[in-house]
């Protein structure tokens, strides 16, 4: 490693190492986030909130608040989608087709007309509703439609538009969860940006290890045909339970091993000299921790991890490209030696095992 300028310099390698650490932490953060979203039924809660916003402000003929929403969930088309034996978010589906929504709403409104309905039945049904937000919305949706099919489409679009906004709510909520997960992850792994930079700067072996893993990850991301370019895969931890596949979270073992040198809490130093003699030489707290630096380091890591894996992968790609661009051109001897070894390797791979 020479130190000529930024290219191929220690500084660049430290930056690559740091970005790589951020990338892996961000991937872990996303995995935990998705798991939490499933556990907390965030999608179901989100859909329930959106439906409530649409239908809750419509009283019934007796003036009872929330009548329309209650009728909606009691309707067989919707009740059939609720998970039996559970209540609340656990019972609520995470998805509702707009066609089902529109059919249910129209059926509630035209309950007085069993069987096939026409546009005028829908119109009179809406007009018969007591004053409320759903009545206002439905009247607005059918006023220019003229026929039943168009009216149904307009109601479906109304639902779809609300779902688009609900997706926005979900994203904002997951962003909050992402930051919280990033804080916990940073604390658990003691991912202190300042300390990581310091370690990488002082320790060329650790730096080289991380740069190597970073290059490998970028290379695998580029070659789409590689069998190792999978973002995700699954496995069955319990072979007796084929109904429970488990997602295999990236990063790889090699990558996590590479992180070992820059993350984690230092072990306490032996209390006495005799203990110190028995103990293996390893990192331990040699001096008082500078909590100001550590908190700042954690803060920087949390901000970085919250930016997400795609962001850091993109940055890593750019740094690796700069590094590759700054490499000294190979001599003709090196090139021929390399190509010779590659072609031999290819031949070996293609040859039958004998």
């Amino acid at each position, binding site marked *: 490693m020479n130190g000529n300028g930024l290219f191929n310099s220690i500084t660049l390698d430290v930056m690559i190492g740091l970005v790589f650490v951020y990338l892996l932490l961000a991937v872990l953060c*996303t995995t935990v986030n*998705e798991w939490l979203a499933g556990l907390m039924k965030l*999608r179901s809660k*989100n*859909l329930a909130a959106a439906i409530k916003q649409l239908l809750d402000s419509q009283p019934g003929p007796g003036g009872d608040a929330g009548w329309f929403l209650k009728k909606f969930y009691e309707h067989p088309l919707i009740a059939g*989608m609720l998970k039996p034996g559970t209540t609340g978010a656990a019972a609520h*589906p*995470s*998805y*509702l*087709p707009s*066609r089902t929504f529109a059919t249910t709403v129209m059926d509630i409104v035209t309950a007085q007309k069993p069987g096939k309905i026409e546009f005028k039945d829908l119109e009179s049904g809406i007009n018969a509703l007591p004053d409320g937000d759903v009545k206002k919305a439905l009247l607005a949706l059918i006023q220019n439609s003229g026929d039943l099919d168009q009216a149904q489409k307009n109601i479906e679009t109304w639902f779809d538009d609300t*779902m688009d906004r*609900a*997706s926005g709510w*979900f994203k904002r909520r997951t962003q909050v969860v992402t930051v919280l997960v990033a804080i916990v992850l940073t604390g658990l792994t003691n991912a202190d940006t300042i300390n990581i930079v310091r370690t990488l700067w002082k320790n060329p072996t650790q730096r080289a290890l991380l740069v190597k893993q970073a290059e490998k990850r970028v290379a695998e991301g580029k070659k*789409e045909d590689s*069998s190792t*370019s*999978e*973002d*995700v*895969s*699954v*496995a*069955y931890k*319990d*072979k*007796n*339970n*084929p*109904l429970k*596949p*488990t*997602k295999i979270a990236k990063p790889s073992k090699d990558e996590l091993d590479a992180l070992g040198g820059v993350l984690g809490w230092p072990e306490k130093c032996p209390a006495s000299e005799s203990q110190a003699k028995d103990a293996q030489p390893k990192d331990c707290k040699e001096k008082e921790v500078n909590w100001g630096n550590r908190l700042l380091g954690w803060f920087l890591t949390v901000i970085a991890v919250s930016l997400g*894996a*795609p962001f850091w992968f993109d940055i890593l790609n750019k740094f690796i490209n700069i590094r590759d661009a700054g490499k000294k051109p190979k001599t003709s001897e090196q090139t021929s030696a390399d190509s010779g070894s590659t072609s031999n390797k290819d031949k070996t791979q293609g040859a039958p095992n004998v």
Partner: protein
Amino acid sequence: MCSLHKFSRSVAALVILLAAARAEKLILSSTFVNQVKDRATVSANLKVDVHPNTPHSISKGGSDGDIHMAGRADEVGLPLVAEIVNARLVKQAMTRLKATAPGTEVPVEGVWRIWFEHLGKDDQIQGDPVDVPDTSNPAHLFEIHPITTFGGDSVLDSFVDIPGYTAYPAHVAFPFYEQVKATISASDSSVTITSGAGKYNYAEFVIELAGAVQDVDDGSFVLANVFDNEDDEEAVTKEARRMVFVKGTRPACEVKKLTTGSRLHVLGIPRVNLSEVAVMATEEAAATHLPYEMIIVAVEQGDLTGDCAPKNAATLKKKAKGKSGSGGE
């Protein structure tokens, strides 16, 4: 000569472009995925739009003795084809099918099957209006295949070896299944799968149970390693794959007698493993290999025991001697 060369190059380029465009996107509702992912079968009121009157001939490849029917079903909301395997063995159902006029609704139960084999030009979105098909094998990614009940007639007896059919050997079919690339993502309401084309409908292979058989309402699932031959030591799959057995069939009866490590010689067809898809799907599109599982359609005659042997074993043997049928698609 030169212009002929240019023309042929242009045609080749066009063919390549068309082939490249044949990776298709399937968008399923999350609710549907969660409902069927750990089930063997689905039920549907199938509007049978187009069907031939004779099953496929039997030899190899697509000449598999199945009979196709193209139709539409609200429960599925996708272009779909339903198939009876070993159609010649189930005369009552065949008579009913022949008498079915286009557009007639028939209650059908059978194994749900998603496989990216019959790709079309457009993405397929569950719940979108489905065009009335004009052929018995339109572009479709969803199948009810094999059918278990057609119009109330059970066709479970069709889950037997296809007499006279040469299936793809495991060493051909499984390396292909293992390497199909896919992208999987999810939104609040849907799961999207984009995959390259699938092939090799019927594979013959040996399974070695890697765990216990797990029963569900309409069948059983088990993880198993896959081998080419009975005495092979090296599996043709990287890891144990999930096998699907349909309740009431001979294969389901047979597998329940086995314990971990036991082997069974079977005939199967692949389908997307939605259980694995559901676990993988996140908002961020992820590249992966298409998760698949095998629907076990038959157990090799020699491996059938006692009460699991088909009632019509004698008929099957007779049929195996003479390959019959014509006009399959």
